[in-house]
């Protein structure tokens, strides 16, 4: 089994490659040195304080949070309706429709960004928060459809049939049976959409109106003159949010399902 242990070591090395640089960011966030890199001079929380006092960053943070939340609402709503159609009904041209629904992923994001800008230019509309919102929603939509579709396939239709045979109207059935059963799928889709929006930079650089920054574009702008320690602290906070929230949600979901059984 020597080969197997070689594979194991190789795998560990690849995982190290994936996580070591990220861990470095997390550690450097607490470095008291006034430069963003090595050597580590001591433990300090002052960069988090600086971060909190930095108005440009907190503003970008608010923009990103609102944008991400609204993107999640829009793309999850559209995505769930589309996924329901794909899972629940047989109709002609289904394969074609499925492909069409993932076209936003197949178009390079840079091209998608330029195309939408040119369309807007033709309409004589300026860049706006609205552009970012619809743009992010369309980028997230295919992923939401795929995630929700995968989860919806697992829901058995017997419950709905039972509700209907017990006299529930279609609307009652949807809101009292189908929707609660769909909630994990809804939640997963929304979380995914939020992450995609919160993380997006490629298209956001093109779409944002002048003066408006999201967290990634703000970091991108600050990078022009090396990595500041504030960026490390910001990275720490972002990782805590985007990794911590889904992990916590997953753990809670597990805990509650176990309790039920």
């Amino acid at each position, binding site marked *: 089994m020597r080969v197997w242990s070689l*594979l*194991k070591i*190789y*795998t560990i090395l*690849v995982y190290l*490659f*994936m996580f*070591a*640089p990220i861990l*470095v*960011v997390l550690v*450097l966030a607490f470095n008291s040195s006034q430069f*963003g*890199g*090595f*050597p580590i001079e001591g433990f300090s929380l002052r960069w988090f304080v600086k971060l909190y006092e930095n108005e440009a960053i907190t503003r970008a943070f608010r923009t990103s949070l609102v944008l991400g939340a609204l993107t999640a609402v829009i793309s999850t*709503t*559209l995505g769930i*309706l*589309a996924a*329901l*159609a*794909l899972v629940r*009904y047989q*109709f*002609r041209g289904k394969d074609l*429709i499925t492909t*069409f*629904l*993932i*076209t*936003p992923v197949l*178009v*390079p*994001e*840079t*091209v998608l960004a*330029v*195309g939408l*800008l*040119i*369309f807007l230019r033709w309409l004589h509309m300026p860049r706006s928060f609205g552009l970012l919102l*619809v*743009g992010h929603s*369309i980028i997230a*939509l295919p992923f939401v*459809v*795929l995630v929700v579709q995968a989860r919806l396939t697992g829901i058995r239709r017997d419950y709905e049939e039972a509700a209907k045979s017990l006299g529930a109207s279609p609307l009652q059935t949807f809101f009292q049976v189908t929707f609660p059963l769909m909630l994990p799928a809804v939640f997963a889709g929304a979380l995914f959409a939020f*992450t995609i929006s*919160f993380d997006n*930079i490629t298209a956001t*650089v*093109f779409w944002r109106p002048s003066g408006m920054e999201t967290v990634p574009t703000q970091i991108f702008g600050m990078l022009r003159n090396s*990595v500041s320690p504030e*960026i490390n602290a910001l*990275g720490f906070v*972002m*990782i805590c949010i*985007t*990794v911590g929230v889904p992990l916590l949600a997953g753990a809670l979901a597990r805990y509650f399902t176990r309790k039920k059984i």
Partner: protein
Amino acid sequence: MMQKDQSADKRPWVLLSPSLFAITMLVVIPMAFILVYSFYENVDLAVDRVAFQFGNWQEVMTDSYYRTAIWKTLRLSVIVTVLAAILGYIPAYFIAMTRFRDKWLLLLLLILPFWISFIIRTLSWIHIFGNQGALNGLFRLLGLTDTSLSLMYNEFTVIIGFIHVFLPYMILNIYVSLEGIDENLEPAARTLGATPWQAFREVTLPLSMPGLAAGCLLVFVLTGGSYVTPLILGGPNDFLFGNLIYDAVVSELNWPMGATLSFTLLFLLGLVVVLYSRLMGLNQLSKAFR
């Protein structure tokens, strides 16, 4: 009768219509506009004239600058894809085949990078290779050098940055197709006298091809379409085709040229996607979500 009823059912179309409308308005029509704008004429900064002329196309086709950028992009995308495949296959194989009790942890760690900010993951390499990075710090500590070695802002760091960000896509896709293989096949090949390596090469590897191909397609297309990574980790000469688009649109405000370049990129990467879907079909790509 039933069949007829079903095909006349309007409900799925009602459910689909918001998404179809949104994609048509925000993706299909804009793509058409890119094509139209590529024939417009750039008069001045941010000023263009409605026209039907081939000046932009002629420039893109004949100017060696653009051809160089296309080759550079192709070369870098191939390098990143091949390296990601080599780096990614073995971990995917290990995760799929291991009897390790905490396999879920390995899978969770594989998903984790998708949740971590792309820009943070990219800039984290400055902490490794930069002047104040871990490597330079280590060299100084060991007394190997007094000054900082410049290890950053070259093609190598751009490649590392790309692989780091796209590797999880590769591993996940390969893993999904390896996981779908009947686990008795390799032992069966062994009892028929195949060596472990033969069993892998003749049975497992061919069966995992769809996942490997899906991973390669994703990494290739994502690398070929990007421009941010070279801006953060590359030097002035490490630009991709996407950077030309960025320059044309954001810096020079030359919309017709930006449109021409965008359409060129769409066409080139579109060719790759079409070729792939002819060979493999697009549904392999969505399997990673199940």
